[in-house]
């Protein structure tokens, strides 16, 4: 049944449906509404978890790590500076192969201080060894959150579900929350085989010397690669159980044979889709939504760009001094193809700058008759800057 829910409220309810044993969180805009909603659900007895109101995001992630190691389904959420403060723990959690779910309500990372949406935070920890899923709308946020617990527990890897701050977290949308019975059927009770247990003592997180470190890292890399089909299978299982898929590794919108494609992550996809539906693109164009950014779905991407001449890669963050992060990765993933599209790489919507539906035709126009630009911040207004900074 569809219900008008604020994104954060929908996400909190999705988490509740997964019956976590432990939730730990610390407030930060724009994630705050998620924690507040969870706290209210706990206060009202609608959620039976241990809610640990920690003194920092660093401890939030550490509590989740300890809780999951001790066998509880565990969850936390944060944004921006909070994700940065968690980063040491997120690497550690992933390296220890501890399954847990983290929502990242995407926000820029300061300085300058800015509370609005881009994806610099989750991009900064892309090498942590956590799985990362990016959601185009709040329905996907709900569905991906529920799937994330099953993915984490099947792969023994932490899963980060990325939802754009404000654009999704603070926006009312008609949402279908699956019933508890259906979620219970889809998501079995968490049974962590390696959990800390006095009846079968194990040592976690030992000192690993050069004789073993490489092999441990290799097995982590393999685990990430092996997660690719698991993410697809779990999406299919979800569709069967709930009646709706969330997009597997990536999904495409628009005409199959289009020679131009736009690749993006997160809520921009919805904006582009709207532009497409409104007929703003004068030429046939398809939109490629990269739902799964880690592990990187190279094969699925190659398939999706088959027959595409111009591929526009959009970023909501970038690496200063290099350029696009997603653009660089996409370029690398397609480099060995004999026939590969021209890649145009743009950052848009940094620090909450509006991404209008008119973006779609503007992007297409920018790629016409030019040699591809390696990277550009598309919506920068250079006339605001002193000459030497332009």
């Amino acid at each position, binding site marked *: 049944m569809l219900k008008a829910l604020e994104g954060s409220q929908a996400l909190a309810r999705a988490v509740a449906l997964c019956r976590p*044993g*432990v939730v*730990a969180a610390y407030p930060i805009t724009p994630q705050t509404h998620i924690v507040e909603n969870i706290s209210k659900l706990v206060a009202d007895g609608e959620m039976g*978890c*241990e809610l*640990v*109101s*920690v*003194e*920092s995001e*660093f*401890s939030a992630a*550490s*509590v*989740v*790590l*300890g*809780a*999951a*190691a*001790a*066998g*509880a389904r*565990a969850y936390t959420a944060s944004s921006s500076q909070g994700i940065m403060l968690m980063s*040491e*723990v997120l690497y*550690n959690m992933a*390296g*220890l*192969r501890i399954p847990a779910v983290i929502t990242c309500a995407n926000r820029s990372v300061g300085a300058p201080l800015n509370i609005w949406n881009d994806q610099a935070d989750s991009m900064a920890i892309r090498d942590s060894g956590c799985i990362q899923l990016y959601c185009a709308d709040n329905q996907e946020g709900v569905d991906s959150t529920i799937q994330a617990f099953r993915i984490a527990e099947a792969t*023994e890897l932490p899963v980060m579900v990325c939802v754009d701050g404000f654009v999704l977290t603070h926006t009312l949308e008609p949402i279908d929350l699956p019933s508890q019975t259906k979620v219970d059927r889809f998501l079995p009770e968490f049974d962590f*085989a*390696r959990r*800390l*247990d*006095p*009846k*079968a*003592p*194990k*040592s*976690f*997180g*030992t*000192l*690993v*010397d050069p*004789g*073993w470190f490489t*092999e*441990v890292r290799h*097995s*982590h890399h393999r685990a990430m690669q092996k997660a690719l089909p698991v993410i697809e299978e779990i999406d299919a299982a979800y569709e069967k159980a709930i009646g709706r898929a969330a997009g597997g590794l990536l999904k495409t919108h628009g005409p199959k044979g289009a020679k131009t494609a736009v690749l993006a992550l997160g809520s921009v996809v919805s904006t582009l889709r709207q532009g497409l539906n409104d007929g703003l693109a004068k030429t046939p164009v398809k939109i490629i939504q990269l739902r799964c950014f880690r592990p990187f779905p190279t094969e699925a991407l190659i398939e999706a760009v088959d027959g595409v001449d111009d591929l526009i890669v959009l970023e909501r963050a970038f690496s200063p001094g290099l350029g696009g992060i997603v653009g660089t990765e996409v370029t690398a993933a397609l480099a060995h193809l004999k026939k590969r599209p021209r890649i145009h790489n743009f950052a848009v919507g940094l620090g909450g700058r509006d991404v209008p539906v008119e973006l779609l035709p503007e992007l297409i126009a920018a790629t016409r008759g030019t040699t591809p630009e390696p990277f550009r911040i598309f919506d920068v207004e250079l006339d605001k800057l002193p000459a030497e900074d332009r």
Partner: protein
Amino acid sequence: MAKTPETAKKAPSKAASKPAKAKTAKAGDAKSGGAKGKSAAPAETPSRKVAAGVGTAPGVDAQALGGELAELRRRQPRFRGLEAGHRACQGCGEALGARLVMEAAGPDVMVANATGCLEVFTTPWPQSAWRVPWIHSLFENAAAVASGMEAALKARGHRTKVMAFGGDGSTFDIGFQALSGMLERTHNVLYVCFDNEAYMNTGIQRSSSTPHAAATTTSPAGSQRMGKRHLKKDLLQIIAAHHVPYAASASVAYAADLRRKVRRAIEIEGPTFLLLHVPCPLGWGHDGAKTIEIARLAVQTGLFPVVELERNELAGVMPIRQPRPVSDYLKLQNRFRHLFGNDHRARQEREHLQALADHNIATYHLLGEEPDPLDTEGADTVRRGGLIA
């Protein structure tokens, strides 16, 4: 730091390639911890998969333990949560302290251990000296990881006691915030700080627990400096100010007192804290055979007051009958060697340290008539520590 894993790179020995058979450890069964054991190296930890050092603790037959912890406990009055065969330096006070804490705690516990010597010398993959569930995550999050473990056990309806272990660096300095949070939220966790008064694992750097005037590699003595310029942080008072039910200091020189405090803390449902003074022969620059003597002198001079605080009220002290002069303690350690030079600054610093000791004695009313506590009471009786009947 002083423990490059010696055997980990060798091909697994025959004995090690077989999973360790369960055996009921008798008192005195194995050599005590702390020695760089060759013969007593813990067994290989067979693992389900290679995943960042995850394995089964040695010497434990999970089946034998199944559901019969109480019985196991009865049969094993000296259950050793931390086995011999780790790679601590000879005479390491931290190794001995951890062994005593684990003996008193019993088998129904799990441990979150911060980065530091204790973590490193007990778990060179693929070996582990721990016979209880044990996790190391980071340098500064042991208290938060323990909070999560405790919350999980609560959520799952289990009553195993959670303990968090950290060195002074991890406790006084970098993990202080997480610890404060854990205490404030009243998690049912016993936090033990192994206080060897410097960052030993990284090669003897000063911490906020390093005593005034002690030389470390980042507070060296020189023509312009007499070692550390600042005072040792009074952590116990800060902990007590959280109004925790129990916060105490203890010394590795007084094993019976330590065991009693561990048992006491474990039986309390709530956050408890133990500050355990553990000499480090390498970092303090003393003979490994003098660890106990030096630890004892720290108490008898008044430099390390051994006290108990309940809800921020002084509830007990270890009395000193005849205080020893601080120079008796200082002169045995190289870290204070510069205080015995023939110059007025050295004399001034010695007097300063004596004044600090006198201040402790006065503040905690340490002068007592009772005999010095002897190390016999309860030495060989260990009640089970956990909360399951």
